[in-house]
């Protein structure tokens, strides 16, 4: 995800966008849901953070004696980033969204905001990220909310064990964005049963209500590509030449913020094309998940069964194959069959229902520690799901008028709300 973003947007973080004169008192400038999702927040609209933090990366041995194939030689354990203060402070765990690692840009911004507000912070990769699949997933097959959350919970305990001698903690808190937000709810429920951390407060940011429906909605974005997702290569190459021609016609110095800003203002990509690019980014992420899981389990899904890949082998064909598989393919051919084998009698319907906040709504309703923060135009949610969140969390649901999916996460107001939620 990071790399595709690098091509299309990377430097946009310095974007000099003029303030959006909306009359709703909310200053986040980008009205379109797709555009906001891709562009994120202009750097001038993010708060400034201290240059130096006490921070280091933890490399955790969550599952002892885990065998790692040679192609993943660089994976030495689960990577978490830890930022800490010398004095006693509350600790917050941050869970990344789909496909993101412990140092994703969004997590780093959140980490700085919480650190500045006096929190110790530990960031965790998403269970759908290759590092997590390789080093921290018991089944090595991500996708089930209950199992993934149990894996996360185990990882948090390992992280806490690694640092508890160094810091003083006044309370434990939990926050996650996107898929990580939904997982945070399940982790908190598990913690209420096992009582290790006794989380004081839990915030979900742009969470899907149902993981299955949300994934389907992202896949729908791909359908806006001419010829559908099976022609994503053609689409990608066409977008690339558009991008490169636009550069060569203009008088640009480099692929930098000015250039990327004009892509937005000149509307180089249409609404449908922007949708296609979001869908494609999701697919590229998903490919990493499919490939790592397949190699770790030797399932013979995209890599021939029993083939041992060395670090110097080409895996380009697997890249192309994996990116052409949809979430539905993964679900129907790989994920669900695995769980059906584990739990004979499990129906497809019951499995899909278990991948939703609704499956634990009784718990969420009776606990005052939860809050949710999302956007009116987050395309992951249907109108009905948005109303469901409103009704479930009442006053603890903060819904911004725009921002798409996570586009406004790094915006000053949003970060302030986030931190404040945990200070109350």
């Amino acid at each position, binding site marked *: 995800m990071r790399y595709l973003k690098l091509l299309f947007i990377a430097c946009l973080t310095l974007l000099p966008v003029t303030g959006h004169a909306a009359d709703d008192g909310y200053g986040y400038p980008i009205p379109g849901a797709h555009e906001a999702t891709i562009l994120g927040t202009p750097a001038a609209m993010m708060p400034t953070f201290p240059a130096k933090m006490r921070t280091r990366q933890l490399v955790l041995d969550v599952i002892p004696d885990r065998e790692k194939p040679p192609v993943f030689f660089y994976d030495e354990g689960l990577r978490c980033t830890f930022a800490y203060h010398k004095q006693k402070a509350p600790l917050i765990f941050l869970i990344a969204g789909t496909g993101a690692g412990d140092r994703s840009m969004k997590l780093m911004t959140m980490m700085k905001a919480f650190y500045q507000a006096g929190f110790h912070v530990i960031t965790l*990769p998403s269970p759908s990220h290759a590092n997590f699949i390789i080093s921290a997933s018991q089944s090595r097959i991500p996708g089930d909310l209950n199992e993934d959350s149990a894996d996360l919970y185990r990882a948090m305990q390992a992280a806490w064990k690694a640092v508890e001698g160094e810091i003083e903690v006044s309370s434990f808190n939990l926050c996650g964005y996107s898929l990580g937000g939904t997982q945070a709810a399940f982790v908190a429920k598990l913690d209420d049963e096992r009582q290790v951390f006794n989380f004081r407060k839990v915030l979900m940011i742009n969470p899907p209500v149902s993981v299955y429906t949300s994934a389907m909605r992202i896949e729908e974005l791909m359908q806006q590509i001419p010829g559908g997702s099976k022609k994503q290569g053609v689409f990608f190459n066409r977008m690339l030449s558009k991008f490169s021609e636009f550069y060569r016609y203009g008088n640009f110095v*480099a692929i930098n913020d000015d250039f990327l800003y004009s892509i937005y203002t000149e509307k180089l990509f249409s609404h449908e094309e922007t949708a296609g690019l979001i869908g494609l980014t999701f697919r590229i992420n998903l490919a990493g998940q499919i490939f790592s899981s397949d190699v770790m389990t030797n399932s013979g899904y995209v890599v021939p069964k029993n083939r041992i890949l060395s670090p110097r082998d080409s895996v380009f064909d697997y*890249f192309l194959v994996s990116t052409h598989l949809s979430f539905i393919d993964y679900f129907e051919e790989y994920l669900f069959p695995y769980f059906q084998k584990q739990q004979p009698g499990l129906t497809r319907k019951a499995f899909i229902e278990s991948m939703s906040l609704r499956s634990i709504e009784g718990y969420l309703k009776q606990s005052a520690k939860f809050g949710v923060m999302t956007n009116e135009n987050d395309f992951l949610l249907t109108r009905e799901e948005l109303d469901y969140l409103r009704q479930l969390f009442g006053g603890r649901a903060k819904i911004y008028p725009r921002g798409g999916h996570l586009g406004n996460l790094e915006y000053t107001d949003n970060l302030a709300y986030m931190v404040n939620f945990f200070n109350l």
Partner: protein
Amino acid sequence: MTVARYHTSTLFLALLLWLSLAGCAATRTVNNQAEVPARHSISEFRDQNFAEVSDPWEGFNRDVYRFNYYFDKYIFLPLVSGYESVAPVFVQERVSNFYNNIGEVRNLTNSLFQLKGKESVTTLGRFVTNSTLGLGGLFDPATSFGLKRHSQDFGKTLGYWGADSGPYLVLPVFGPSSVRDTGGLIVDSSIYYGLYTLVDPFAHTGQSFALDSAVTALGVIDTRHQQSFRYYESGYPFEYYMVRFIYHEKREIESGRPLPKL
């Protein structure tokens, strides 16, 4: 040419380390169980390939990529973080500006090679402004005067005059490159050392070897300090292809000739 010698020996050391590592890479796990074809294979998709770059030496490149990871991990990055912990941020910024200002010489020569008049004047203006008002390059007032930095190098010059990038190449220590850009790197370094010898700033100090070496070493550390890229940090199993694609495409786009306005 003491600095050049220092530089060559660094490169030699790097190559030696890399060769020893490549030896280890040859040993691979053998699986005696028969392979079974995968459920999905490339033959079932009728689509264009994407993010593809000519890379006939992929095995070699992947070995070097891996070598760079270890080189970073055990040698380069510890030096960089040592530097970062010793020098205050203010000093680090001055050091970066200083070397970036020296880099304007490379930008200027290549703007001239590409016969880009306006750009050459801008770059010369930057160099003169920052060398004087910017106190020998420690500060960058030129940018606030609206003189934008134009990064140029001989690889881009070759590309501008129509030379193909040639196959992708990962260089020890330097990282992603291509056959054309490697040639460019050699030319730029030669020009740099040629000029350096001509100027020979420490000739009369009696300690020119030590000082030349220190300037080079700090320059190398500053270069890595300014680069946030870390090998395998994304954890993404296809990171090699993403890096290859982004590198190649960025170079192609930036070195291409502008098209006439429609």
